[in-house]
């Protein structure tokens, strides 16, 4: 069995490139070579687009359309259900809470992570051990989300007062006189904040690295000139550095908004949405795989798609404008 598997893999490793190369070769021939300006040469890009378009269509466009269709069908997709799924979800407490939490995540998580990332980028820029500091701050980003969530579950662990606290958060706080250990993940509404802290811990390093790169791109002359004109550091940052970094900030914010819309692992591992910590992606997973309700799961997927579209469009337009300006 294993031998057959290995041989199959080897065969595929040979066949796939051969097929692609033959395709390129044949299309080139069919388009009549690369002579500029001829009718056939203009069709060459079309040939090159076809494989990508097929893959994109099959793995992205088709599932998207199918999901939209399924969202109007019943649980096992055997009957047309009209707007039932949509109507149900908007009267479903679990879904509404998930919707609210995703909004909270978008606002607070993005705000905190971007702000922290910016501050740290500026601060690390001014120290001699910059490389080390950045590496340390970036480390959490290299841990898988599930592992990070498991680690933080231990960080938040609760033991009744009087026992030795195995959770770092409670253990650290217990040096404060009169402190009672808290079950951080079970304390509405702080449990949502506790989950967001995990996200901030993971992604701040990522934001820092991107911002830091952008910061290095700003001409020192501008900053120097402002300083000579008597601008204070705060003014330099807000009037010169930040505006010059605005495009990077937009990209990072866009990335975080989309990341947070589909936030799943942290919630799934740490609370599974209990005590009002549910988020859309976790709800979708439950509807789909635990409750086998394809209709409702698809509605949530459609909602996520609808929520992502304006962010992506805004981002694209901003960049299109930027290009035109150059």
């Amino acid at each position, binding site marked *: *069995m294993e*031998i*057959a598997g290995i*041989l*199959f893999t*080897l*065969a595929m490793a*040979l*066949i796939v490139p*051969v097929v692609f190369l033959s395709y390129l070769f044949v299309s080139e021939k069919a388009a009549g070579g690369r002579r500029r300006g001829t009718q056939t040469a203009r069709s060459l890009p079309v040939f090159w687009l076809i494989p990508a378009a097929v893959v994109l269509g099959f793995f992205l466009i088709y599932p998207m359309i199918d999901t939209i269709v399924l969202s109007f069908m*019943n*649980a096992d997709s055997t009957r047309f259900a009209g707007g039932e799924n949509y109507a*149900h979800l908007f009267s479903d*407490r679990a879904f509404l809470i998930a919707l609210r939490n995703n909004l909270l995540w978008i606002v607070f998580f993005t705000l905190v992570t971007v702000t922290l990332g910016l501050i740290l980028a500026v601060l690390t820029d001014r120290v001699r051990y910059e490389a080390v500091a950045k590496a340390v701050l970036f480390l959490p980003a290299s841990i898988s989300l599930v592992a990070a969530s498991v680690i933080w579950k231990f960080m938040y*662990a*609760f*033991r*009744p007062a009087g026992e030795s606290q195995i959770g770092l958060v409670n253990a650290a706080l217990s040096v404060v006189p009169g402190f009672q*250990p*808290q*079950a951080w*993940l*079970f*304390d*509405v509404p702080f449990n949502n904040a506790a989950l967001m802290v995990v996200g901030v811990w993971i992604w701040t390093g990522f934001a820092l690295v991107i911002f830091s790169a952008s910061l290095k791109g700003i001409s020192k002359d501008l900053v120097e000139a402002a300083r000579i004109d008597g601008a204070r550091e705060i003014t330099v940052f807000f009037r010169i550095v930040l505006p010059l970094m605005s495009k990077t900030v937009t990209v990072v914010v866009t990335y975080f908004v989309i990341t947070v819309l589909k936030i799943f692992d942290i919630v*799934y591992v740490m609370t*599974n*949405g*209990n*005590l009002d910590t549910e988020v859309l992606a976790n709800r979708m*997973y*439950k509807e789909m*795989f*635990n*409750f*086998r*309700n394809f209709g409702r799961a698809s509605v949530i997927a459609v909602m996520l798609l609808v929520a992502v579209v304006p962010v992506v469009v805004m981002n694209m337009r901003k960049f299109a404008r930027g290009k035109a300006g150059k």
Partner: protein
Amino acid sequence: MKKAVTVIYIVVLSAVVGMPACQPSMGGKVTVLGVWGGSELDVFNKITADLKKTKNIDVEFEATRDINAVLTTRVESGNPPDVAILPQLSLVVDFARKGKLVDLSTLIDVGKIKNEYSPSWIDLGSVDGKFYGLFFKTAVKGLVYYDPQRFKELGLQAPKTWDEMMRLSQKLIDMKKTPWAIGIESGNASGWPATDWIENIFVRQYGAGPYRRWYDGTLAWTSPQVKKAFQMFGDIAARQGWTYGGASGVLSTAFQEAGNPVFSDPPKAYLFQQASFMAGMIEQAFPDLKPVTDINFFVLPPIDPENKAVEIGGDVLAAFSSTPQVKAFLEYMSSSDAQAPFAATGATMPNHTVPLSAYGNELDREFAAILNSADTVVFDASDMMPSEINAAFWSATIDYIKNPARLDAILAQLEKTRQDVYNK
């Protein structure tokens, strides 16, 4: 180039075609999907090694903690395992009604099973009159573990009625001690130990008939019966000072370690309700405990003496294909030969020909005796409910312990889920 590809093609083809030919007698394999790990899996591997020896059948076990999701995906994509070991009967019902499961009476020798299993197992494993679920490993639920030495020191006795148990708890409170250790954290199934509590209370109060209507979805969650069961649970679990660590402790303690405060030195609590499989886990955590003298149990006492059902949970085998290998595998699993090694791990086995001497210790033998002598056996109600209601029930117990005053709103929400699921 062309030649090389042809050679590879021929080699692949001959490897694939040649494979079945090299194996003698029955041969073949059975793919099994389940939630087992650790010692359970070790024993399973040991007994399936025997099957390999006698019938030359390979059993390929795939483990997952999220069986509902994995199995659904595999079945929907037309790639189910041959056999699934399911901890929730509702999954058996669901897949059976969708026509995905094999009616076992058409595959295996049911006569033999009827001789060796009590009829309630066949009933529980049947859906609409057809036999789909073969019980393999079970656990008696609703047992209260305690340390007899501590009880003696404090002059306490195992209670015979629910009221006695409540008075015993109050007595401990009066002695400035915490009576109960409860922990309901269990990852994505958090809350299930609390649903066990409520189910045990329900069946002791109202009996097997209403219990069935409850999990069948014909009894409203807002009914006085369900509300009463929640409240009686809350009288213990959500009561100030009655549980170790209070609501925070109950919610954040993993069920596996929840009993530890009862057996730690000094004890931090005195009573701990869980299923029979817990005895083994406690004995593992405290290897010095001697069964019966240092750790013993009483069954959650009756509330209405008329209602004497025993609640159980367990793993059920369901078949998605009907090959001769699956037949051989299932017949072997139902036999005393396959079940006896599991009995030694602290599981309670449904085949009553498994000798009591196969069980690990005195407590395990008592669990088996309770099961073999029970008039009525009811299955864990939440695991009989559709998974959507089951999940909502788990979460609801968490909300309830956190905020008992919200009970009516919580039950109204559950009722909404019930109506929604049954009116689909």
